[in-house]
């Protein structure tokens, strides 16, 4: 009867409006277990440590290899992906909380629409749609490609927003991810043709000027993206853009 188990303490919430509460679970240990496989175990047998039958814990997941960003949650105080959170590397009881900066859908599942809406606002894409073939486009210098590749690792997981002191209910700050995406698409030779539109958006409400430079984002980013360098680069770009738009006429042709 000395079977190894894993203890969990999970912050649960029925729906967006209801009050959160903590519930403890104990699941049988398996080798190389991650947080998601433990949550699946709870889903199979939703009984808490008191032996009471309860509702299965809800969470979000998709790729299971840390590239989609969907399964982000706060594990033992750190915002990260639950797919790569290995039980063997975690202190027990494993404390699971939803990312509090986003509206909670249910239990550990959050609504990250705020971030996707920001990506739409800053036009984080390269517009190539049209009625005829635009051709291959300009070549990208290798050095730029390397930098862009690092930035392109962003999976919009929301960890940088979760840890940011300036992303909260009383501020409209969009957080690091969308700002870094502006840098990515402005680096792109074709994307840069619309860079002024993205910079305009970054200079709007909740834009780059509202960064408080606490630099938690760059520490927390699971992909190691140089977010603070991106933000600083965009601080510089938006300054040039502001001066050019006010004093100059370059922006009319560039």
């Amino acid at each position: 009867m000395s079977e190894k188990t894993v203890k969990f303490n999970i912050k649960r919430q029925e729906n967006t409006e209801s009050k959160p509460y903590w519930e403890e679970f104990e699941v049988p240990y398996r080798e190389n277990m991650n947080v998601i496989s433990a949550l699946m175990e709870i889903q199979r047998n939703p009984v808490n440590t008191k032996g009471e039958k309860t509702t299965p814990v809800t969470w979000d997941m998709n790729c299971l290899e840390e590239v989609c960003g969907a399964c982000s949650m706060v594990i033992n105080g750190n915002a990260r992906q639950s797919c790569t959170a290995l039980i063997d590397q975690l202190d027990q009881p494993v404390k699971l909380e939803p990312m509090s900066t986003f509206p909670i859908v249910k239990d550990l599942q959050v609504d990250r629409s705020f971030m996707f809406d920001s990506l739409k606002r800053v036009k984080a894409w390269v517009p190539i749609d049209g009625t005829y073939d635009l051709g291959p486009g300009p070549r990208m210098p290798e050095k730029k490609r390397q930098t862009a590749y690092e930035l392109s690792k962003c999976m919009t997981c929301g960890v940088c927003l979760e840890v940011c002191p300036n992303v909260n209910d009383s501020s409209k700050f969009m957080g690091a991810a969308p700002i870094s995406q502006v840098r990515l698409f402005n680096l792109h030779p074709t994307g840069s043709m619309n860079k002024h539109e993205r910079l305009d958006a970054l200079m709007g409400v909740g834009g780059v000027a509202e960064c408080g430079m606490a630099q938690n984002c760059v520490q927390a980013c699971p992909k190691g993206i140089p977010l603070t360098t991106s933000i600083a680069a965009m601080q510089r770009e938006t300054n040039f853009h502001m001066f050019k738009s006010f004093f100059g006429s370059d922006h009319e042709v560039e």
Partner: protein
Amino acid sequence: MSKQDSSFAIRRLHSLLGVIPLGVFLIQHLLVNHTATRSEEAFNTASEFMGNLPFVLFLEIFIIYIPILFHGIYGIYIAFTAKYNIGGAGYGWHSTYRNWMFSLQRISGVIAFVFIAIHVYQTRVQVFFGEEVNFDMVHQIVTNPAWLVFYIIGIIATVYHFANGLWSFMVTWGFTQSDRSQRVMSYVSAIIFVVVSFIGIQAILAFI
């Protein structure tokens, strides 16, 4: 949407005013105070010179009062729209140097705002009640140990706010982008904090 919005310009103005003119004024003010370490007369001469600059009221209003009110009031708004997340069990990495600086910048800003308001009342406003700004006026204030402690805390908070503000000024205006340049600027700002604090404290102690 973005074109009409002015928050970007306001934030940039907030950052600029913190250094020019407010930071420059802070240094100049502390240097004038520092003349008190030489003698009472030296300070009175220096403060008289400053007080008798041509168009002094105009200078005060446009270089000090308006910038400081704008910077202070908008700064308080910024300070109260943040969610502070230093420390806490399991939140080890949250206690990073820059996150501390972020929180302290806002705390010191609020302290500086209160300190400066009281300081202006105790000195500049008293002129309207027939007092004269001189060595003796400050001496009267800081011989009370409670006020002395208050002034020292106020000076340290204000100087910290300036020194660390310089760091974010350099990022805001696009000078320091790379990790390395930002790190070097952290050292520079720490040195400025120590040196300017020293000047400020040495000056205030000379009034006892």
